[in-house]
């Protein structure tokens, strides 16, 4: 009976790893509080750095938005890896491809809109004084 249960467990583990994993479950990071705590540490450091960068005079002012962007992308990466457990492991191919497509669409919408609207603003600028 016990052997049967064990073999069923092995089989289910086999099927799962063969068919990939859902996001949030990684064979390597599965079931560890430490993963979340490491993620919390990185996320806290990046958050504090972001708020510091926005209020400090030490950074060259035109460079602040770039710095904020880099810190935000880094923090999103930390959240994806340590909280959602997304990785490029073979059992995560589907999740990773879906994420890549999502990021592509998001970038297309955001940067596309900004480029088009800036261009329109530039072309349609009215002279302020007659």
């Amino acid at each position: 009976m016990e052997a049967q249960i064990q073999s069923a467990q092995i089989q289910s583990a086999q099927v799962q790893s063969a068919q990939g994993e859902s996001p949030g479950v990684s064979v390597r990071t599965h079931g560890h509080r430490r993963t979340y705590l490491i993620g919390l540490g990185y996320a806290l450091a990046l958050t504090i750095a972001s708020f510091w960068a926005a209020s400090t005079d030490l950074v060259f002012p035109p460079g602040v938005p770039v710095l904020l962007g880099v810190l935000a992308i880094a923090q999103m990466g930390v959240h994806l890896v340590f909280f959602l457990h997304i990785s490029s492991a073979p059992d995560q191919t589907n999740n990773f491809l879906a994420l890549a497509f999502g990021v592509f669409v998001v970038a297309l919408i955001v940067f596309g809109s900004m480029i088009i609207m800036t261009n329109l603003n530039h072309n349609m600028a009215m002279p302020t004084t007659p």
Partner: protein
Amino acid sequence: MSAAEHALASSTDVPLSQRGPAPTRVVAGFGFWLFLLSDIVIFAALFAAYSVLSGETAGGPSGAELFDHKHVFIETLCLLASSVTCGFGSLAVQRAERPSVYFWMALTFLLGGTFLALELGEFRDLLTHGAGPSRSAFLSAFFALVGTHGLHVTIGLCWLIVMLMQVATLGFRPMVARRFFCFGLFWHALDIVWVGVFTIVYLGAR
């Protein structure tokens, strides 16, 4: 090497066509992941609108005049902490430890509720100072973006209550565990969106 690890290592030799259907847990997780990504595309549209309109204040107050960084920092900490307690709660669900699930998920609810209360307080302040969504295009875009995020958090909190009631009445059935798992994904995804909100809306205001 244990038997399970051995099975994991050898399973890659099985051809794709002979592996059979994926278990429901994997399919449900992947489907929910696709939903989350499409949800993030909605936020991308709102972010795009905000970026385009953030300068259009129509003579009204600008973001730099309205936003309080300390307030946003506390909101951010609440949401980040709730993400971690939600992670601990998910681990407890996997181990089917009832008291631990209640504790961590109650903490998650409390932190999420605090975040929501702070956000609603900020909205109230803006409205009483005549900076409502009808004041300028900038404020319309602001309320649409931050309001949609707040709405998602509200839905998440309602979902969390339902899940805790299901644990109380149905126990840790595979179905309930799957739903809890999807809730965890949803909650972490909201935190990722918030990173974009506080960077672009609050810290980017100048």
